[in-house]
């Protein structure tokens, strides 16, 4: 591959500056032999060179710096102008060609592997991949866009441009308008992940640390019907599966009433949000063996990264009833450390007093 695209299996965490955190992490997981749907990154250079191929960079900078961060109308106008500009300018053919070709290669290989005919129209997910270190700024900077069930090279390219344009939400403009020129420029770097769509009928999130208490001996899985978006966005109350890492063993199952789900649109492009049929609503969406399979994979991911992870996954059921787990992304879970510190402060006074005295006595202090 070239300057503007990289296949996941060529990437690892060191490539974050070039392809953003999400793509680097996916690459890292592919290289670790974890089950990740294949795909490629549209590199930071693609958007950088796009901006430099015309006066686009200068124009966008003018709009951002000219916006009044305290005026809603001004931000909205800046947003409309920038988006129109990013979507409207001609994409240099060398960039467009490379993305097109990367998609067609992925699509062809996949169609061949799956034995399907539609070799140039394999569905993919297109998502932004932020470059900043901690990911906190990304939410302000608008680098959070996701497009599911994107089909065909033209549409992929269009959605890549929409990811770029998502840098210019009113909030993101407000955020960057207060930065220095250099920082604003750094904060407007973006990569895009193009990844095979998992044809999931169940999806969810796994924490390799208790989101409740920060307990590192615990795995928590949230799962619901359809694509994972409903769980991540909080649009449904998911089933909860709690495990002890030792084993791992399932300790608690809480089945929720799952009223809605995202599924691929009937037309083959995009997704629809629909009611779950009554028969499935109150039924566990994972079997115990699927829960254990997910837990095993989560432990491999955690081991690979060496710290607690927050993992998005999807389950694809084959005709024979077996399930294949696919990991969509994994991020370090950082809250546990904070919780741990709070927890030790909360130890009851009576206990800590007595224990302090015991600790001192065992060390021969006093």
């Amino acid at each position, binding site marked *: 591959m070239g300057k503007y695209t990289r296949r996941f299996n060529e990437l690892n965490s060191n490539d974050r500056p070039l392809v953003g955190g999400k793509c680097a992490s996916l690459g890292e997981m592919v290289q670790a032999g974890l089950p990740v749907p294949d795909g490629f990154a549209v590199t930071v250079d693609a958007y950088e060179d796009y901006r430099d191929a015309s006066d686009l960079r200068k124009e966008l900078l003018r709009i951002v710096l000219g916006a009044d961060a305290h005026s809603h109308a001004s931000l909205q106008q800046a947003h409309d102008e920038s988006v129109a500009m990013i979507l409207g300018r001609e994409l240099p053919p060398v960039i467009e060609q490379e993305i097109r070709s990367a998609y067609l290669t992925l699509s062809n290989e996949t169609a061949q592997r799956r034995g399907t005919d539609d070799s140039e129209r394999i569905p993919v997910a297109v998502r932004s991949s932020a470059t900043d270190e901690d990911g906190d700024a990304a939410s302000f900077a608008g680098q959070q866009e996701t497009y599911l069930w994107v089909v065909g090279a033209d549409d992929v390219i269009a959605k890549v441009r929409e990811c770029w344009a998502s840098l210019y939400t009113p909030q993101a403009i407000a955020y960057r308008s207060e930065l220095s020129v250099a920082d604003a420029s750094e904060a407007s770097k973006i990569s895009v992940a193009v990844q095979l769509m998992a044809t999931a009928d169940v999806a969810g999130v796994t924490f390799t640390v208790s989101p409740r208490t920060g307990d590192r001996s615990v795995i928590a899985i949230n799962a619901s019907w359809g694509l994972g978006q409903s769980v991540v966005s909080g649009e449904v109350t998911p089933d909860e599966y709690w495990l002890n890492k030792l084993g791992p063993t399932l300790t608690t199952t809480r089945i929720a009433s799952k009223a809605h789900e995202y599924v691929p649109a009937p037309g083959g492009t995009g997704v629809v949000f629909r009611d779950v049929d009554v028969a499935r609503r109150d039924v566990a969406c994972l079997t115990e063996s699927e829960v254990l399979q997910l837990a095993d994979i989560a432990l491999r991911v955690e081991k690979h990264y060496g710290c607690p992870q927050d993992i998005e996954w999807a389950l694809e059921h084959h005709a024979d009833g077996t399930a294949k787990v696919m990991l969509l992304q994994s991020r370090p879970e950082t809250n546990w450390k904070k919780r741990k510190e709070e927890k030790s402060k909360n130890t009851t006074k009576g206990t800590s*007093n007595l224990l302090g*005295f015991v600790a001192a006595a065992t060390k021969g202090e*006093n």
Partner: protein
Amino acid sequence: MTTTDNAVENPPAHEPAPRERSFPDPYQMETPEGAEGWEDMYAYHNRFLPTRQAEDSAKTWFRNSLHYPEVSYPFDQVTIDGAFTGTGVTNTRVFALPPAKGLDVRVINGYTYMSTIASPDAEEQARRAEEFGKRAGYYFQNWDSLYAEWEGRVTTAIRAVRDIEVPPLSEFEPIERITVDRGPSQANQLLAAYHRLLEHGDQIWTLHSEFLNLGYAAYLQFLTLCKEHFPEIDDQTISRMVSGVDVLLFRPDDELRALARKAEELGVGELVLAATTEPELLANLADSDAGQTWLTALDESKDPWFYFSYGSGMYHSHRSWIDDLRLPIQAIGDYIHRLRSGDDLTRPIDKLQSERDELVSHYRSLLDAEDLTGFDETLALSRTVFPYVENHNFYIEHWFLTNFWNKVREFSSLFQAWGFWNDVEDIFFLRRAEVEEAIVDLQMAWSAGGNPQGGHHWPPIIKRRKEIYEALSNWNPPPALGPVPGEVNEPLTIMLWGITPETVERWLTAQDGGGSRTQLTGFAGSPGIAEGRARVVLRPDQLDTVQEGEILVSPVTSPSWTPVFGRIRASVSDIGGIMCHAAIVSREYGLPAVVGTGFGTSTIKTGQLIRVDGNAGTVTILDESTGA
């Protein structure tokens, strides 16, 4: 119903404010019908006194149903007073435990309640901490050698009690009294012997507590550390990391297994199987060499391993294996059958050991490097102290107390011979001070060559007290008295008694008529889930009713019930936290257990189908039917 002497005659005239939730006021307790006059069975220091009402009504009193689930016999109050003296003096005066003092103890309607004495203020705690550091530090640093020395002192005390001679009160003093020692008379010796017995029965509790609370404190330190790192870890996982896999309490049962094996090796298995009592055993085996060899092995096992109480050991009525061999003989029979069906009867010690190591390395692997040293140090200390925590029970409650109660019976036999009462067990209906009165009566009568007064005085009193005892036994004592405690955070209270804010809330709900009638919640004592028919066993003498495959439901279980654990599927107890005996034994035997349910024996009926979830700590009654 009548009110007790201790109750206030005239409650305040003003209209009470809207009642906040509370437990019954000890001064408003009614005497169960037929138990009028129960107060005479206990010394004044054990009772709620009218002039102390303001102070005592303001405190929360927890029922000590872990150690004293049954009505106290007047004489048996010796062990209750002694035990609280021992733990009090050890905490308060010996080690100067900074935040905790001892407990106040009262008896109401025959049941023992206790209340914590307020913690000292910060300044006093600091002063105590300095002392505690010196004193506890010395123990922690010399633990193993001090423990070895302690074992010596305890066995000396046990032998001393066993060797107390109750003078026969023979017609004449022995001639040696004239020709050799010219020492005290048998009358003098009688009182001295009784004092010696009380002296040892008192001092043993200081030995009991000597290491115990330090041991618990060290364990608690590890428990708290684990919970800081792993807030969702359950107590049984923590105790599995610490517990010894081979502790003294399993030794008596191991002896039974060995005897079963020996019987088969010697070819006398059938003869053992044919016996249910000790005389039958002797009759069956005495005639052959092989039988004699086996009986010799039995005698060796008996001392000390059959000095194992059927109950907690705290009551004279529990008796021990040594007093009644039926249970061990039946258990040996069970083991012989198991051997014949191919079971080698070994406990999986290696497996338990490697599971324990695996558990520790798993949790270690989840810790940050900076936390490892603290974890390793507290775990190591816990493991150092734990053998004592687990083993003291055999020495004191079983071995010592069995000898102690039987020595009291020797005194009683003498009184019986002098017409004081008809039944040797009657002595336990006298308070310790009353026994001393009886001794003086006997001293004087024997010395003068007359007849003692006892036979005229005691029989009606004993008869009445037996009636009172029955009436009190049928009464259902509340789990707590007085106001709802502000917060329960004294760590030893939580760990030993299973009293947490949640338990208090459950008690209140049940008292107010709420709560589920088909689901009980307790502590997850030992993991696993089992279903089966319930068998409610209130007293050790009901143990032989337990059938294969039943679930044992009892107020509290004793380690000496372990042979029965081979027959049951799970156990449920009213009382106990994660470190109670039922939990330890169940974990060792791989049986699900829920402990500290509060109302198991009063809610579940024998014959009901129940499910015990030892992972979640719940017991569910699956059907309402009752068995025969």
